[in-house]
């Protein structure tokens, strides 16, 4: 790790203004991705602007049709939240599959979305539920947020403040874990909004993506059989030590069908 300056601003305004003055500065949320990269000397920010004192980035609020979660909500908080469990149990369950206990008590929703790791879990929920990402400047639809490998619509210095998740009729997330990292080798989030279904796939491509054919079939009939026969094309899917594109393509179908089964349970 290289040396850096540490800041702990008390308000979002201060945080944003600090970052604007430090072109090589970065926000620090749970540090579960950023600090690893710094230790490996893959990332060497000049300044770390710690978001942990920002009260306005915390909290979980439910209002009928949406659940709004602060960017600094830790994974464990979401996993254990009675409100989230009641409104969108699939979201709480997803948060509970992230990393290990220690990681879940440090890592945050905002950090996970801003980082946009191709194998991260939260992006599947954000895209699968059609969430809205609130920043210090604007609101960004999930459909327009994830741009590619570790790339989002965030502008330099833009701060995620919270995320609103629409409450579906039913939803579920099925994660086939990478045996080593326990990130998603393939994770599929399905959501049924009553005649309109969304399917988001993480871990399989350069960034999270929607699966149109499955969405169409599930919108017509939200049942396991609707997706069980859909063969996903391996083109463009990730290839690594653990899974070939063909294997990932196969797993997308299996995980999608299992997710629908789980959602219907």
């Amino acid at each position, binding site marked *: *790790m*290289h*040396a850096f300056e540490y800041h702990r601003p008390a308000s979002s305004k201060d945080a944003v203004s600090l970052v604007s003055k430090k072109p090589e500065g970065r926000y620090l949320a749970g540090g579960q991705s950023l600090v690893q990269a710094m230790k*490996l*000397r893959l990332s060497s920010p000049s300044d770390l602007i710690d978001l942990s004192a920002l009260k306005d980035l915390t909290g979980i609020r439910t209002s009928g049709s949406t659940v709004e979660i602060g960017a600094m909500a830790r994974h464990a908080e979401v996993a254990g939240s009675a409100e989230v469990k009641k409104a969108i149990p699939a979201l709480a369950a997803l948060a509970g599959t992230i990393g290990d206990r220690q990681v879940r008590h440090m890592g945050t929703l905002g950090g996970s979305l801003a980082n946009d790791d191709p194998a991260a879990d939260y992006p599947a929920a954000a895209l699968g539920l059609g969430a809205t990402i609130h920043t210090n400047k604007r609101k960004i639809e999930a459909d327009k947020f994830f741009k590619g490998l570790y790339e989002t619509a965030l502008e330099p210095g833009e701060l995620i403040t919270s995320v609103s998740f629409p409450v579906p009729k039913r939803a579920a997330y099925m994660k*086939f874990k990478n*045996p*080593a*990292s326990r990130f998603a080798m393939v994770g599929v989030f399905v959501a049924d909004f009553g005649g309109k279904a969304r399917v988001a796939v993480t871990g399989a491509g350069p960034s999270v993506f929607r699966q149109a054919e499955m969405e169409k079939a599930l919108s017509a009939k939200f049942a396991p059989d609707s997706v069980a026969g859909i063969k996903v094309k391996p083109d463009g899917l990730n290839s*690594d*030590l*653990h*899974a*070939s594109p063909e*294997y990932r393509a*196969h*797993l997308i179908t*299996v995980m999608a069908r299992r997710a629908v089964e789980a959602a219907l349970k």
Partner: protein
Amino acid sequence: MSTSLIGARVQRKEDYRFLTGAGQYTDDVELPHQSYAAFVRSPHAHAVLKKVNIEKAKKAPGVLAVYTGTDLANAKVGGLPCGWLITDVKGQPMKEPPYPPLAQGKVRHVGERVAVVIAETLAQARDAAELVEVDYQVLPAVVDAAKASKGPKLHDIAPDNTCYVWALGDKAAVDAAFAKAAHVTRLDLVNNRLIPNAIEPRSANAVYSRAGDDYTLYVASQNPHVERLLMTAFVLGLPESKVRVVAPDVGGGFGSKIYLYPEDVVVTWASKQLNRAVKWTAERSESFLSDAHGRDHVTTAELALDKDGKFLAMRVQTTANLGAYLSTFASCIPTILYATLLAGQYTTPLIYCEVTSVFTNTAPVDAYRGAGRPEATYVVERLVETAAREMKLDPVEIRRRNFIRQFPYQTPVALQYDTGDYDATLDAVLKLADVAGFPSRKQQSLKSGKLRGIGYACYIEACGIAPSNVAGSLGARAGLFEAGEIRVHPTGTVTVFTGSHSHGQGHETTFAQVVAERLGLPMEAVEIVHGDTSKVLFGMGTYGSRSIAVGGTAIVKALDKIVAKGKKIAAHLMEAAESDIEYDKGVFKVAGTDKKKMFGEVAFAAYVPHNYPLDKLEPGLNENAFYDPANFTFPAGSYVCEVEVDKETGATTIAAFTAVDDFGRIINPMIVEGQVHGGLAQGIGQALTEGCRYEDSGQLVTGSFLDYCIPRAGDVPSFKLDTRETACTHNPLGVKGCGEAGAIGAPAAVMNAITDALGVKDLPMPATAQTVWRSMHKAA
């Protein structure tokens, strides 16, 4: 003291210290005038070092020195020695290329050390290390054992990258037996390369004292005396008396900390150059790149059988990957500790094994938990199970038809088993695993979309490699005895010094149980000291499950001397004949009378010799012993594994694992179970999750825990364990050793179960979900 401490589940004495963070590991040792080292490592697998420019690094803040291979060569620092000379099939010595601590002229694997930067702080050392400019001329690389002989040459001394071709057994007789066989089973097997990953990374902290012109090296090592011997005699050219090696608390080794490593040499040498304490602790990434790896065999194995499934002969051809350089014991692992185990538990009368060991552009390979014996067991037990399937015999029945039942038994591959009862462990495991209930469990699994399979492994292990003279005739360049010393203090408490080393095994408890039981003292009166060359008289260290069988026996021998001297003293004190003195449970008695002296009274008399036969007997009560075993010990056992395979994804889980082992006499069953659990987890890891992978270019793909998968608790089931006991015939405790068994027996049991579930002949390890899915896909 009424119940015996031998066989008791005594809580581990060391755990309080470990669990409360009071353990003292090498990295915890901070010395006055401490400085810190960072190594510049090659990013290339094979390259000529055209230029190493250290000027910028030398000027960086806090930097005390930057050294390269040239500096070490100029200072006449030698290369690292190999501790075992293998003589090849033509009677020629193996090829021993130089292994300089810092690269000279060329680098031969990713992670090889090119330079070292020593600075006031660790951060400064690491920052400056980035400023070392190395001009590499990249060469083509070879990483696969099977391709090595045709690959680019690593060392001038070995033009075809072959270290040796070695063989054991009567080839002509074996070939003749194959020609007459009713059935031949053949398997092409790969024993996957593993990366050890002890929880504590390697670490070394050396300090030079001008006052004594001597060095102290704290190092995470499994055998400090061997480390000292190799470093002083072969590398630094110093008398042993000038180097003290301390291996304090060590957080696991699994073999990877047996060896003398370049970093240890460099910090020790540099400590004198700088007159500073120099510390280096590996980052996890460095561990992946530069700790000695394990296994990595490519094998063709054949078993010849008669029509009734009796084994007639075995023929094995193995290519073993030694990596880029010869690590300390690399050469003996795929030979002496592998081919000699190919008889397994069976009466196979003829065995021939030929081993070609090769250099490749990968990290050196050496002993890793089991060391040769897991590879041998994998060959034997995969062959046996496959033969049973091919001949439509029950895999249990085929084993029974071939078990050795008469002991001592001379195998055709040099070893002589002293004792065992293979039916006993097999019978017990069949019951404990409820093998009879397997068909119904299989049906049950099918209902939830899972294929269930069952697999067996009956392993044999040779522990406590011995005797020294035989090992010597086979090429060992070291003795294989152990030393122990008993120091009785004037008040009757005891300090025991052992040349064994504990890095997780619990010696401080097990050895204390032996001593306390033998002397009839409470556990608290016995302290075990190990790991410091200036305290312990000598030691060969801990590996090959040798601690209790060899180290424990040395202690028992010294205890016998203590009791013998104690009797002399007691006889004097009680004015009785020495031959009338009996010693029992801490009391010296005159036979047939009620006269007695407590152990503490006798000890006190030895140190305050007022009433003492000074004319005939030296004062004091302190004895030591060196013990060189007459033979290996031969633990053996039977394992049964049941797996469930998800038909859709290929994901495989261990549904049940049952192990019945014969470790001879057991001192502490709780500690033994812990050893078996750990060994099984590592064996299951090899079979299901762990596989070191290099790209063809020589880059390590599995260079972190993001890609290299060691099993977690959730990956292994709750093990069902039991033991059977045939006491070792040639040591006084009747013990055999238990440290490696699980890792030796498990891979074959797991792979036999998976191939049973899938109905395929073979599958490569690790059987990851993708591998299993592909196999089903092909079959479908």
